[in-house]
């Protein structure tokens, strides 16, 4: 057994003991989070901000890089045996924080847990999985119900996080209070709404790339406070700075302000088929929706609300993605044409539109700007600022005409399109239905051939831009501020703060 273990660590290319023998890192890294996360259990966690903490706590089977390519993490490689069989080859010698082995048993356990635990929010992401089978201690075979090329991409996020079966079994539903994973840092302490502390895990498989003894995630909700803390040196990194603060922040010579594209988008979701509100002019007529779109100057909107840092878009696929459909561009504002379309649709102007936005000041501003722009084309937009929980329920029951809930984005285009556009898709609250779109989306899932998938998504995107159940406004950008002393930050579109390689000069 001992020999086997030794062989395994050699295979991994690094002996943790050797790292421990060197000077262990002593520095602390402090990261400002824009909000408090939810439960720290990868199976039932749901917030974006929680994922940032998981980046320090729980390694995943795969990761993505700057080009949105899938790269190995806990899995060393993968192969498709056939379109319904995925073989995962695991990295040898990986330990969980409790000292147990991260092996095929643990991977099968975690995938099963993601699917079966009551209240799991991973169930949909792994919906294509039929079962996971252990082949040998370092090989897992995942059998799918139907071919699903986006499946591997799902394993680059929470659904690919592997937890210690021993700890998870012992803790049951309270696992999230003291999570045990195989990430670079282990859980130490959490004070709700204040901070989460993680300490270095000396036996981490990639320990040579970890240069901190401790990471503290501090919750600082207020934007100006977040920036002030960064400027004062009270934190080394702050995620999601306000776009309007970037101008000031860039004047500070001690700071490095990074703006890079995200996977997500902001949009107006239009009720085209869910209940009586879809019978109103906007939901009933694609001409009216087109006119509405033409009345909005996305570039000016982004200029006003985000100082031009977010990019206007007319599709759900992020511009960084190899699948981005370059030919579908947001149309220029055209009031005359908008008015003509309204006349063609035969509706009485002004056309009233009830637009629901969240109560956050920047979302209200988006509403106000659109209201002002659209009024010139003959729309009377009534902005309803509603708190988020009410907004979700209203969307679910079809009690909305147009609603401004965006999407944080996924690495594979399927994650940004399928649920929203497929007939009766789980997030298709506006009940959009187009047989062609359904066929293309299914076909794109069934093949792993990139050019073929790209062509299919281009068709989807073009059709949606014509039907406009979703009026995409912009693809978001991440604005991350860091101390100039900090090196090694990787601007990857998922917005995570990867701790591997981060270093603080003295």
């Amino acid at each position, binding site marked *: 057994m001992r020999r086997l273990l030794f062989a395994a660590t050699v295979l991994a290319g690094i002996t943790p003991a050797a790292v421990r023998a060197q000077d262990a890192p002593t520095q602390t890294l402090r990261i400002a989070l824009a909000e*408090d*996360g*939810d*439960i*720290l*259990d990868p199976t039932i*966690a*749901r*917030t974006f901000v929680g994922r940032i903490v998981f980046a320090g706590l729980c390694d995943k089977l795969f990761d993505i890089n700057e080009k949105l390519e899938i790269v190995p993490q806990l899995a060393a490689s993968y192969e498709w045996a056939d379109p319904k069989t995925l073989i995962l080859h695991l990295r040898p010698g990986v330990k969980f924080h409790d000292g147990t082995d991260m092996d095929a048993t643990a991977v099968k356990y975690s995938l099963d847990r993601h699917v079966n635990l*009551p*209240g*799991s*929010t991973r*169930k*949909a*992401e792994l919906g294509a999985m039929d079962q996971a089978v252990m082949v040998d201690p370092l090989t897992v075979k995942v059998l799918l119900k139907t071919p699903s090329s986006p499946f591997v991409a799902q394993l680059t996020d929470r659904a690919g996080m592997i937890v210690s079966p021993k700890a998870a079994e012992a803790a049951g*539903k*309270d696992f*999230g*209070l003291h999570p045990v994973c195989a990430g670079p840092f282990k859980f130490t302490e*959490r*004070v*709700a*709404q*204040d901070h989460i502390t993680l300490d270095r895990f000396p036996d981490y498989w990639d320990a040579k790339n970890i240069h901190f003894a401790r990471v503290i995630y*501090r*919750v*600082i*909700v*207020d934007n*100006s*406070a977040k920036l*002030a*803390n960064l400027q*004062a040196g*009270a934190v080394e990194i702050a995620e999601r700075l306000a776009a309007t603060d970037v101008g000031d922040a860039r004047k500070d010579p001690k700071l490095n302000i990074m703006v890079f594209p995200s996977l997500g988008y902001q949009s107006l979701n239009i009720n085209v088929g869910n209940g009586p509100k879809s019978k109103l002019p906007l939901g009933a007529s694609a001409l009216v929706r087109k006119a509405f779109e033409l009345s909005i100057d996305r570039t000016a909107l982004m200029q006003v609300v985000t100082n031009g840092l977010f990019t206007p878009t007319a599709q759900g696929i992020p511009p960084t993605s190899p699948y981005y459909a370059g030919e579908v561009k947001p149309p220029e504002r055209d009031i005359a044409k908008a008015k003509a379309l309204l006349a063609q649709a035969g509706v009485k102007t002004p056309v009233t539109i009830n637009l629901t936005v969240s109560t956050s000041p920047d979302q209200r501003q988006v509403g106000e700007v659109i209201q002002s722009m659209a009024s010139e084309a003959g729309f009377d937009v009534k902005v309803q600022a509603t*708190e*988020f*929980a*009410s*907004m*979700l*329920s*209203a969307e*679910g029951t079809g009690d909305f005409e147009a609603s401004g809930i965006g*999407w*944080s984005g996924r690495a594979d285009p399927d994650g940004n399109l399928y*649920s929203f556009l497929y007939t009766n898709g*789980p*997030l298709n609250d506006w009940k959009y239905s187009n047989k062609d779109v359904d066929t293309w989306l299914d076909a794109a899932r069934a093949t792993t051939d990139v050019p073929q998938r790209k062509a299919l998504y281009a068709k989807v995107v073009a059709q949606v831009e014509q039907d406009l159940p979703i009026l995409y406004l912009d693809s978001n950008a991440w604005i991350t501020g860091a101390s100039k002393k900090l090196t090694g930050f990787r601007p990857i579109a998922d917005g995570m703060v990867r701790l591997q390689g981060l270093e603080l000069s003295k």
Partner: protein
Amino acid sequence: MKGHLGKRILQVIPTLLLVSILVFCLQQLMPGDPAMVLAGEERDPNVIAQIRAELWLDRPLPIQYLHWIGGVLQGDLGFSWRIRQPVLQLVATKLPVTLQLGAMAFAIAVGIGVPAGILSAVKRNTKWDYLANGIGLAGLSTPNFWLGIMLILLVSVKLGWLPPSGYVPLSEDWRQSLATTIMPAFVLGNAIAAVLMRHTRSAMLTAMDQDYVRTARAKGLGEWRVVLKHALRNALVPVVTLGALELGTLLSGAVLTEQVFSIPGFGKLIVDAVFNRDYPVVQGVVLVTATIYVLLNLLADVLYVVINPRLRDA
């Protein structure tokens, strides 16, 4: 007197029971399904159904209420749906923060309110009286959250003297702790200072009309000595009584102030819980707050009766 107090103590129980029912019903009235919030961005209908079952959200309301109140009676306030920490534990970590803030605010309020009240009573109907009154009213008229914003703007942004927000526990670094709490404590304290000032003023005016004060004066004691030694001692009692009541309103005022200064106390806990539909946290925190409020009221009542013998027969 015993009868009166006994009655008051007996009233506490139905009041708290009503509070619990009130909060429970209010939450049900609010639109927005907690299971939907908990189901995450994907909002899988199966997951929503599972969450509803697990949290008893699919059972009739009275059953849900009895389930919860049954736990409360056994000292179990449930757990936060959002982060799964026990509510009791959340309360235990947040209460000290708000108590520290409250204690500082109260110290500031007494420090400003009582001397100002004495001054305006002694110098009644002079410019000092008007000035003290004016400042007091100004404190009462400023919206807490706006004063907070203005202080951040002036003291932190312009002058750079104090951190704009955040909180450091006393146990960690007491100087930093004071630095992070002094501004919010002032914001909370200044409105109470105004109330205390008015009470002190009127209590002092009454006291200074009493026979023993006149006697003391007649004995040729210095005016300030008379005021501080004889009048103030008697005037302070009702002030302290009313102060206990004001502590209750302080808890309410902390809600927005903590929001503005990003202080992780009771107020922030509850506002976030309301918006996240974290029912057990809202219920638990409101119940704890209400209990404190009701007990302070009771204390004020008891003190008042003890001080004011005439009320004993009432």
